[in-house]
């Protein structure tokens, strides 16, 4: 069953994508979705592929988004780990130990955080200044292929693929390519839009 599910998933992602027929219409729909989405709570699986070992490191947890820019990645497993992005700050909680950084003080982490934030909130225009975006689509999903303009960013991020559902325009999958071989993918499932978030205080950074 799991194998079948994997094959079905692979089939969805592997579909041939063609240039989007009407990018402006897509942006308008995405904007409408953004303005009507207050919260997203879903399950995520993070899969980091290491070409050096030809193997993957997997982790999973709960993803929570609250409009306009609050994001929490709560990893399951031991030790517990949580990343919270809100108000220009990033807080990590590892095994009960908190660390808060201004997003501007750690350029690499903050860039990654803002990228994930822009992708998950479905706001590709936030990336437009620093990235070239190619808009593609297939029968099953939309694909935004994003390439950094800056060579310094290219040194750790070759590009990103953002897959959005054609049904509700939420992000189904995000793939961050470090180079031609190594990548990290996030797969989002069981999405609940505009429902209650698990804990109102989860975004409190102090």
């Amino acid at each position, binding site marked *: 069953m799991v194998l079948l599910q994997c094959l079905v998933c692979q089939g969805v992602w592997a579909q041939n994508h063609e240039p989007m027929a009407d990018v402006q219409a897509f942006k308008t729909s995405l904007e409408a979705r953004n303005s009507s989405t207050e919260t997203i709570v879903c399950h995520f699986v*993070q899969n*980091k592929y*290491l070409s*050096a*070992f030809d*193997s993957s*490191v997997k*982790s999973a947890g709960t993803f929570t988004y609250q409009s306009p820019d609050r994001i929490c*990645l709560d*990893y399951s497993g031991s*030790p517990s*780990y949580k*990343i919270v992005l809100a108000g220009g700050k990033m807080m*990590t909680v*590892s095994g009960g*130990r908190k*660390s808060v*950084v201004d997003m501007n*003080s*750690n*350029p*690499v*982490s903050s860039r*990654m*955080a803002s990228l*994930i934030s822009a992708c998950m909130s479905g706001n590709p225009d936030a990336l437009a200044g620093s990235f070239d975006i190619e808009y593609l689509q297939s029968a099953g999903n939309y694909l935004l292929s994003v390439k950094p303009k800056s060579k310094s960013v290219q040194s*750790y991020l070759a590009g990103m693929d953002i897959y959005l559902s054609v049904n509700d325009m939420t992000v189904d999958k995000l793939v*961050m390519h*470090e180079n031609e071989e*190594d990548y*990290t993918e996030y797969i989002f499932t069981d999405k609940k839009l505009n429902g209650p978030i698990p804990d109102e205080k989860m975004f409190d950074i102090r």
Partner: protein
Amino acid sequence: MRKCLTYASILVALLLCSCSPRFYASESSQGMDFTISAGRRSIDGTMVVRELDGNARAVGISRFGMTLFDITVKPDGTYVTNSCADFLDRNVVKKLIVKNIRMDR
């Protein structure tokens, strides 16, 4: 950038979250969580180590999935940096990582 360099230069501790003082590389991949701390700041991640071609290969990954370092450690303790994030690319940091890796022999 200046903050980053300061951060790197004052890195004082590599806390490998394990009871074992050494991480032994074997033919199968092994992972362990790590924290690199400097004052109040820290970065967490997972380090994966495996024996490859007679050497130990250690790859550090941030929680976001970004590769932080990729180091090959030779049996004599010398090492080759395959890649390393700018803010960690300091000998003191890499030596601390290498110091915690041994071949499983």
